[in-house]
């Protein structure tokens, strides 16, 4: 029972960060109907940014998000402006290929500049743990979950309460109707991709104390982000939050009860199962 509770708790904590990745992807998909295959690579860029901010400036990875968020937001806006915007009316497969190409460019540029060596960001608390009602919880995970919760909450408030947030949601609901109501959908696209990459970068910063940092780390996260988003329902932000936590828990349980090498296998099998049984996801409307 102790092991079960332990795995569920750490699964939920990891799931919080996963949710952040998923929300970014689903936001981009919702507003532009573009599936961003370079999402994990954006996370990887966030990891490297955090690593160098930490080693060169000595800024703690959890504090560094105040740098990572604006930098990644601007980077996302730039990518949207230069690349993604040009294919919004193209065939979906061409959009997918463009983002795959973008992912290759990002990971290989990082590899050329920083080599493919594994980097480890070790802080004083990297292996620390806190006790939570008799269950010991990894300290960096605990802090990152807290930050995730704050950011997700702020994002909900932004999307629900502000005019810009409503405009983003209107664009996601119906692009043409939003345009007719005077919403600048091009700007919403820039905003969505900027926010999406800022969220991916933040997730990268939050996981950097607990993961190896290397140029190819992104692709695993890209696939995981899809699983999360499809599970929750493409375009649904609450769905992505829920999906992230479910995937985190499934992974953590599979790692404790089966084998940590096979935890991803469970995730992909679950993914296929969801795709087949309810392709619109837990909270999505059917768009098949």
């Amino acid at each position: 029972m102790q092991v079960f509770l332990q795995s569920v708790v750490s699964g939920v904590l990891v799931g919080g960060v996963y949710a952040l990745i998923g929300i970014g992807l689903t936001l981009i998909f919702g507003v532009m109907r573009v599936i961003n295959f370079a999402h994990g690579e954006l996370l990887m860029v966030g990891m490297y940014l955090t690593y160098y901010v930490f080693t060169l400036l000595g800024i703690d990875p959890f504090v560094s998000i105040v740098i990572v968020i604006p930098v990644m937001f601007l980077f996302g806006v730039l990518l949207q402006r230069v690349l993604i915007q040009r294919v919004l009316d193209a065939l979906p497969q061409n959009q997918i290929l463009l983002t795959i190409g973008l992912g290759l460019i990002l990971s290989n540029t990082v590899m050329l500049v920083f080599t493919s060596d594994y980097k480890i960001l070790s802080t004083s608390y990297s292996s620390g743990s806190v006790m939570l009602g008799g269950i010991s919880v990894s300290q960096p995970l605990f802090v990152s979950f807290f930050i995730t919760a704050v950011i997700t909450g702020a994002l909900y408030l932004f999307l629900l309460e502000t005019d810009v947030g409503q405009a983003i949601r209107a664009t996601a609901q119906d692009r043409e109707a939003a345009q007719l109501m005077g919403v600048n959908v091009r700007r919403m696209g820039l905003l969505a991709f900027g926010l999406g990459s800022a969220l991916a970068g933040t997730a990268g910063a939050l996981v950097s104390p607990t993961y190896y940092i290397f140029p190819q780390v992104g692709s695993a996260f890209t696939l995981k982000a899809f699983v999360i988003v499809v599970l929750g329902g493409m375009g649904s932000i609450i769905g992505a939050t829920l999906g992230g936590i479910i995937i985190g828990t499934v992974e953590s349980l599979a790692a404790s009860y089966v084998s940590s090498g096979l935890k991803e296998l469970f995730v992909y099998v679950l993914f296929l199962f969801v795709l087949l049984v309810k392709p619109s996801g837990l909270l999505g409307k059917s768009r098949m």
Partner: protein
Amino acid sequence: MRSLPVLLLAAVAIGLFAFPAFVESPYALHVMILLFLAVVQGEAWNVLGGYTGQYSVGHAAWFGVGAYTTMMLMQYEHVAPWWGVWPALALAVVAALVVGSITFRLRGPYFVLASIAVAEIFRLVALNWKDVTNGAEGILTSDLPPLVVGGHTITDFVSKVPFYYAGLVLAFITIAVNWGVQHSKLGYYFQAIREDQDAAHSLGIPLTFYKNVALAISAFFTAWSGAFYALYVGFIDPGTVLTTEVSVQFVLICIIGGIGTIGGPVVGALVLVPLSEALRANLLSDLVFKLRLVDESSRTGLFLKDNLAHAHALIYGILVVIVILFMPEGVLGWVRGGLARRRRGAAGGAAEGAAS
């Protein structure tokens, strides 16, 4: 005039068959073999992705099944590869049909995602089922057994020449299959599905059945290229034959050349293989130094020399972005479009001249 392409094709074929008689350099043969392999991979993917419009980004699964089954039969059961390849192909087709009948219910981006997930499942199984696949260590082959027919040793597979001919024949077979698909009723079904699934369905084309037929053909040849790759390179592991990068490369060959055409994958292979070989052999950085763009002993020069050899994936990425943004029909479609515009321009000019 109409027989010109046929004559040209025959000349190319004869030239390719005679090539090893005139060129002895193992490196030249190696590049040609890689080229044939890329043509087979591209044409194989083209049947499903190009004609039928089902963008699988998980073809590494079939490549891996072909490579692993052939290698395992040879290493553990001592089955000669020219027999072992057939069960490997059969296994790939059966596996593809099982996967296809499940995933073809999905459309568009959902199908793409499912195909990636399937290939990842194959990779994780190969990585973790250590008793059978040797896990991350992979399988290294000792020498291939000599091919003996009727008491005569035809080849002992020491030089690259037998691989050259095997690759060439395989490339011609896949091109012929693509031609056959394009010019048969099957091809029309496939293209109808690509253009509008619902319309095709309402005309009485059973979607899942014909998508599965396309997948079976595609998986068959992808697995064959996998078996060929495994035997030629002599080493496979999950990291080289079952990753998403491998799947992406198949797609790239088609996209860069021109999707849904017979010539497209050939053009794609002709662009990608020499490019990545030139990078690997440092030809590109040498060129940069020769043109005096960068001084060889400067810091940038040393950096380029050290790193450009590993940059082929970066160049692939840049190529894809350029192709998608500026020539979405691929290099072949772009050239054709350019020619058509010029011809129309010339015809328009001639008509105007006649009118005045």
